[in-house]
């Protein structure tokens, strides 16, 4: 049967589990899609402001912020501080050993511009390389749905960030952890965590690490048990304000360039901060046969935040061979060097 591409987003029938309705031409996600209305978004934003006012000003920080130095997180930090200038924010940048110098410079610059504190979280490069090598070599270590959201490498990286940011929030008695996820990446604007859920998530990640061959006995990646045991009343909530704001890549870039953020020097259409991303995409395509950004991009297209043509272009763009080769060398992994690495649609 020939491949069908959803008429509304960018998903196609060759992606495992995706069905396109022949009558409507839509994938089952688009058929059941109910976006947040403007009214609902406004209500969420009002609720977030109320939460900031109710719980802010009590700990060392109000917000622990995940700052990659890329465009989305830089913009969200800028707008967050502009809309809520009273917030005391600690921006945490995870240097995963592949964070570009430009991203580190941009992150520090954004903190200076917004008056936020900056903290760089990192580990020994050898440990990070070994971890990502194992993630790349793993197969089916993450649930099916996680593979739709991101590559195995990105899933490991983002889960480390989540674990360590929640840990930081507990230590700093900060009531909120903020991520710059778009509507395509996370549909839930407010996530109230509970101790049980944090404990459960930690244990799940511990098992996933074990599955790829990592015993994190020193809790380098995992939320430290000792911190969790002393959590007391300081259970943070996770907020995703970017998914409530009007989003367009052009608008985000225009705003950032005006305030002095510098465009990345890396040739990757899906990341403006991580030099491992192209390899992670290549690795995912080789293992599972579809682009790890397909669902993210489909979400943006579905919600009208990205034109469909642009979405299709993004997931069909040739991956950067030099970036893939450089990452493979660092991870001591082999790649297929003789062919062009292009996503097939």
């Amino acid at each position, binding site marked *: 049967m020939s491949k069908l591409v959803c008429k509304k987003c960018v998903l196609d029938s060759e992606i*495992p*589990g*995706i069905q396109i309705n022949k009558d409507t031409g839509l994938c*089952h996600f688009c058929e*059941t899609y109910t976006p947040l209305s403007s009214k609902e978004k406004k209500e969420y934003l009002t609720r977030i402001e109320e939460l900031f006012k109710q719980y802010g000003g009590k700990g060392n920080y109000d917000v622990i912020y995940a700052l990659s130095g890329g465009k989305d997180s830089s913009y969200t930090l800028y707008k967050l501080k502009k809309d809520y200038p009273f917030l005391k924010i600690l921006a945490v940048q995870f240097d995963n050993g592949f964070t570009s110098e430009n991203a580190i410079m941009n992150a520090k610059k954004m903190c200076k511009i917004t008056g936020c504190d900056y903290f760089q979280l990192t580990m020994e490069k050898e440990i990070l390389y070994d971890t990502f090598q194992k993630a790349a070599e793993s197969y*089916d270590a*993450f*649930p*099916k*749905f*996680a593979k*739709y*959201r991101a590559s195995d490498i990105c899933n490991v990286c983002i889960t480390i960030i989540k674990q360590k940011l929640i840990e930081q929030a507990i230590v700093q008695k900060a009531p909120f952890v903020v991520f710059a996820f778009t509507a395509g990446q*996370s*549909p*839930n604007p407010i*996530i109230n965590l*509970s*101790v*049980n*859920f944090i404990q*459960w*998530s930690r244990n*799940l*990640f511990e*098992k*996933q690490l074990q599955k790829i061959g990592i015993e994190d006995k020193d809790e380098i990646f995992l939320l430290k048990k000792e911190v969790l045991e002393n959590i007391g009343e300081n259970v943070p909530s996770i907020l995703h304000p970017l998914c409530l704001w009007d989003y367009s890549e052009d608008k985000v870039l225009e705003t950032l360039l005006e305030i002095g953020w510098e465009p990345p020097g890396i040739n990757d259409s899906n990341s403006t901060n991580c030099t491992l991303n192209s390899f992670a995409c290549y690795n995912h395509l080789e293992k599972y046969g579809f682009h790890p950004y397909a669902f993210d991009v489909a979400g943006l297209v579905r919600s009208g935040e990205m034109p469909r043509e642009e979405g299709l272009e993004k997931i069909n763009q040739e991956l950067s061979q030099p970036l893939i080769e450089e990452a493979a060398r660092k991870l001591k992994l082999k790649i297929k060097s003789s062919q062009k690495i292009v996503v097939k649609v």
Partner: protein
Amino acid sequence: MEQIKNDIVDYLKANSFMDNNSSLKDNDSLTQNGIIDSIGLLELMDYICEKYSIEIPEDMLTPENFDSLQGITNMITKLAK
């Protein structure tokens, strides 16, 4: 009880957590069988709260209540009373 189990399986299949042709026993672990992770759990919780008009108290967010079809069904039955 069976209706709740069918609803949950339909949700998991419709949202690509599991394949249409795969089956799930009542006490199979959703996390250990690679069906769901922590983000998936959050989405499943949202679905359950909305579908059955219930609020899940914090002390019920445990693997016993959320990691199998039977656990989820028992929890919903208890809360929906």
